[in-house]
């Protein structure tokens, strides 16, 4: 009986510390800019617009009533790509992407990620850079 109790105590403690270690291996908060933020009202982005938000590293695309946010950080070495006629182009190393962020040329190994966009209760659009979504999925307004 005592042996069981001792065993339970040690085993329980072990389980709890294993869970804690697993969870807290990643900090719960860091001091960078928050990755989920508001980018303004949908009206700020009229249909057909491709607006880059430099400081946020985003390009907001609106087509009709559908809206999406693409990263403008190049997947090659992290340069900020600019909007070009055919899509996006890196000014430094020449990577090229089409309108959807798919690589069409240059050294970039992966397409530009799309981020989750939601409509917050106060009527503003919220982008969460922690959540990548499949390219081509839009938020319908």
């Amino acid at each position, binding site marked *: 009986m*005592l*042996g069981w*109790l*001792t065993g*339970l*105590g*040690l085993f*329980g*403690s072990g389980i*709890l*510390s294993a*869970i*804690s270690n697993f*969870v*807290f291996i990643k900090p*719960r*908060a860091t*001091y*960078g*800019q*928050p990755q989920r*933020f*508001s980018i303004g009202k949908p009206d700020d982005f009229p249909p057909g617009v491709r607006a880059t938000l430099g400081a946020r590293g985003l390009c907001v695309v609106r087509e009709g009533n559908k809206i999406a946010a693409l990263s403008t950080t190049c997947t090659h070495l992290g340069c900020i790509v600019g909007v070009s006629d055919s899509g996006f182009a890196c000014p430094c190393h020449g990577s090229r992407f089409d309108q959807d962020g798919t690589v069409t040329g240059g050294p970039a190994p992966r397409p530009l990620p799309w981020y*989750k966009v*939601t*409509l*917050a*209760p*106060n*009527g503003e659009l919220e982008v969460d850079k922690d*959540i990548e979504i499949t390219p081509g999925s839009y*938020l*319908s307004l």
Partner: protein
Amino acid sequence: MRIALAIGTFFILLIHGIVFYDQFFHRWERNQIAYFDQARAMAKTDAERAALSDRSPRIEQIVVSNFGETRVDRCTTCHIASDDPRFATYAQPLRTHPYSIAMGDAQKDGKWERRHKFSEFGCTVCHDGQGRGLEPKYSHGEDEYWPDPLLGHTTQESWRKDYAPKLKGGEYLEANCAQCHTDPGFAGTATVEKGRKLFFATNCYGCHRIEGLSDGTIGPDLTEVGKKWKLDYLWGRIADPRAILATSIMPKFNLKDDEIKALVVFLKSRKGRNFAETEIQRYKVKLTGGAELVQATIKPVEIKPAEMLKQGEKLILDRACTACHKLGARDGGIAPDLSFEGAIKDEQWISDHFRNPKSTMPDSIMPTFRFTDDEFKAMTAYLVSLKAAPALANGEATYKALCLRCHGEKGDGNGPIAIHLDPFPRDLTKAGFMNSKSDQRLVDSIRNGVAGTSMPAWGKLLTDEQAKGVLAYIQTAYTKEPRRELKARQLPEKNPIAMSAESVARGEAQFVNRCAGCHGKKADGKGPNSLDIQPKPRNLRNARFVGSVDDRRLFESILYGVQGTAMPPWIDYGLNNNDVGDLVNFIRSINQKPKGGQNAVATK
């Protein structure tokens, strides 16, 4: 052994469990879960519902770096619904932050839009509080030692209870609006504006410096006062300075509660830097010390010779002289009565005192104010014109009208303004002193005043008879002890030792040995023993005073002591006329009259 082991491991499990619970089931997590549940119930579309189900409790954080300093605000971790208009009627922490026109919010198509977005401004810019805290106790600053308690809504346990009822409510929030919106008359900062006006009207600017507003040097610099002190402390320091800091020399001003509140709100808004200012604007203020701003606040008055008296009067009443002094019906209750200044002081003295109070009264606490020459002239002219003597029926009436303000109701020198005077008014109840001086000497003090102190020459207002009447009243009402026959003392009329470098050196050696304990190494009356002596030892660097007393009186004070004070008769300790002569030479040598006649009137 096995029992101990079993209990021990069980105990470890228990502790582990408690820590685990504490780390995994935070109050903010429960708040967020409650919010998600309720928001999901309110959701109208599937997309909305889906967006909510994607979210799980996490630390919400706003990093504000637009204002020159980086702030981390985690307030929205608990107040997660503050930007969700559907939660306007909920209880905190799940309540929408109110919208109001006063905060610049605007209504568009029936929906409110914020002027100060949380993502740009954070919460602590306006509310104070500790942005990084995740427990109400720490984030709201209820803990005594956190520097910025939540403004307006929190009254801390440790705060002074007598101020607590006055320190609640959103009125104090104005202080933080005025951090950025410094322009006078900004809508919504009426209390700050009132406080700013009071800061000038009650003379605070004379002593305190606020970068860009005032440049007083007597009191502490208040440029960052709002960052350093809490509301109750500011309130206390204004309402009753000595109750908070026993050594404070700040006078207790006659302020009402709402005036103190306005001053507290104004001071709370002084946090050193205006977040809305650019670096260039800040640099400009630094270069000039804000002189332009000072001059913008206190505009010089152009004095017209024809209206000199009128303008002088207006200046004296407007620029807060009566915040301390008494003048007719106005009484600040802190400094001497100016109602008949023209009768007891001459123009030169008044003018000198205005320009540099310490030149006429070395220990005066009166600040030197910024005025133009013309303004000084007009104010002097007005004071000189105040020659009307009050009607004085007898000795008692005279005492009450002229002496009571300093010497007090009981004659013990504790008059209402006595605490601000240095030297302290004479304690008239001390028979030892009063009876060791001849009547003539006391009448002389009343009629001629004591140079270098606040005791004016009342002889210009009182006849010899009236002065004697006051003295008689003092002697019967306060001194009480019957006067004894004064012993004749052998004193030289003139210092027998000629002034010379050797004599001064000998005098200095004597002084350091015998006198410095009380009068101090600098002879300024602030020696180590002076702390618990009342009355305080004489400041022997008071050139006006030293210049006004003759050798005979110095000899008498040193050789025979001053009865009723701590000054002993040094004749008992072996000093002879020659030693005292050296001492007198030394004292005179450190009080030489500066050239240019600044002190020329001292011995008049």
